[in-house]
């Protein structure tokens, strides 16, 4: 069973994705802040990381940078899932090594699930 780490501070979204990903036969690990996210990425060795950007403790960009700098985590694909779409945000995330950048307001739930499946292939 493939493991997905979801780093997101909104518990409503943790629940929604937890339910839907379990139904799709994935195992989901939750982290509600950047610091926990980084720790779990190292200890749990997930197959994919879903990452929000506006996070407590450590900002998503910093999390992404650290994930890509660390030998143990640098090969894990990271999907950024955020509502942040300021000038340069997308380029910055992709430049830091994110696989995909998804703006929450622009995607349906099923489309996000499809992107997750595609990134895991």
């Amino acid at each position, binding site marked *: 069973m493939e493991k997905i780490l979801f780093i997101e501070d909104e518990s*409503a979204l943790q629940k929604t994705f937890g339910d839907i990903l379990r139904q799709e036969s994935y195992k989901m690990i939750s982290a509600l802040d950047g610091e926990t996210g980084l720790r779990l990425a190292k200890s749990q060795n997930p197959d994919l990381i879903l990452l929000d950007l506006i996070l407590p403790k450590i900002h998503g960009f910093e999390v992404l940078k650290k994930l890509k700098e660390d030998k143990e985590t640098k090969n894990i694909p990271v999907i950024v899932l955020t509502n942040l779409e300021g000038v340069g945000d997308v380029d910055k995330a992709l430049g830091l090594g994110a696989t995909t950048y998804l703006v929450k307001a622009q995607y349906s739930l099923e489309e996000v699930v499809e992107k997750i499946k595609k990134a895991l292939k």
Partner: protein
Amino acid sequence: MNVKEILAQLNIIAQCKRYGFSLWQCPQFLFLIMGIIIGIAAITSYAIATRYIADPQLAALMVFSITTILFIIANIITRSFERLAEANRMKSEFISVVSHQLRSPLSNLRWVIELLMSGRFGKIEEKQTEYFKILKENNARMEELVSDLLTVSRIETATLPLKKKEISLEELIRELISEFEPFAKASNVEIEFKSEPNLPKIFADPFQIRLVIENLLDNAIRYIKDKGKVEIKLGKRGESLYFEIKDNGVGIPKEDQKYIFQKFFRSENAMRYQTQGSGLGLFIAKAIAEKSGGKIGFKSEEGKGSTFWLTLPLK
């Protein structure tokens, strides 16, 4: 500028009230006072200088005092403008913060509704689907408004990102028409599209140009009463592509036409006919068209319909 507009410009007290400034902090009023002082100063300096020609110190003292007064007034004017600029910046920032804060709960809500409607967690009864649809539509309306407000805030703070690349305007229009087909059908509207063959591609931001045409197409269908036709044309004019969209809808009253691209403006008959709408669509469309190096305009007759046109440069 006609007489009415000139008189409106002269109504300084009303203008100052709009800014929420006291008279002594209002730039327009201070400019007027400054003008009067300069006028009086010129006349009295002339009178004093000619009468007391033997006492140049007096004239010099007077010029010095008047200059000091004018300097103080100019200083207050500058500060007032700073306050106006600051207020404007804070307003844009407020819109941006609120919109961001609204965006997350709205997308959470939409995804939960989608999840419930998908039937993944149990069968949904027909009646429940009806209510879920209402939830989804209302959520979509809020998301759209928030997204428009964010775009407006970006336009006003000059941070609207334009990611230009080569795009086929014809393809983009065809895609949009097929997306709008269900809405047009439900509104009893037929869409006709005529394009000149072999049109060149343009260099523009597909996401933003899509927003412009989406707004024009949505308006054209939305403001048709009962049954009608929307005619779209695309062609090349000089170094630009020319897009035109004609409807036989309610049209725009003559007295409202000059305000149609203003933020939050909705014409009187549009509000009567369609209560929903933020009045931001055309403001956004104009800003994007101009930022992309193009132009936008229209002609309209109340009761007969409107024709909006858009030009976009090839490069």
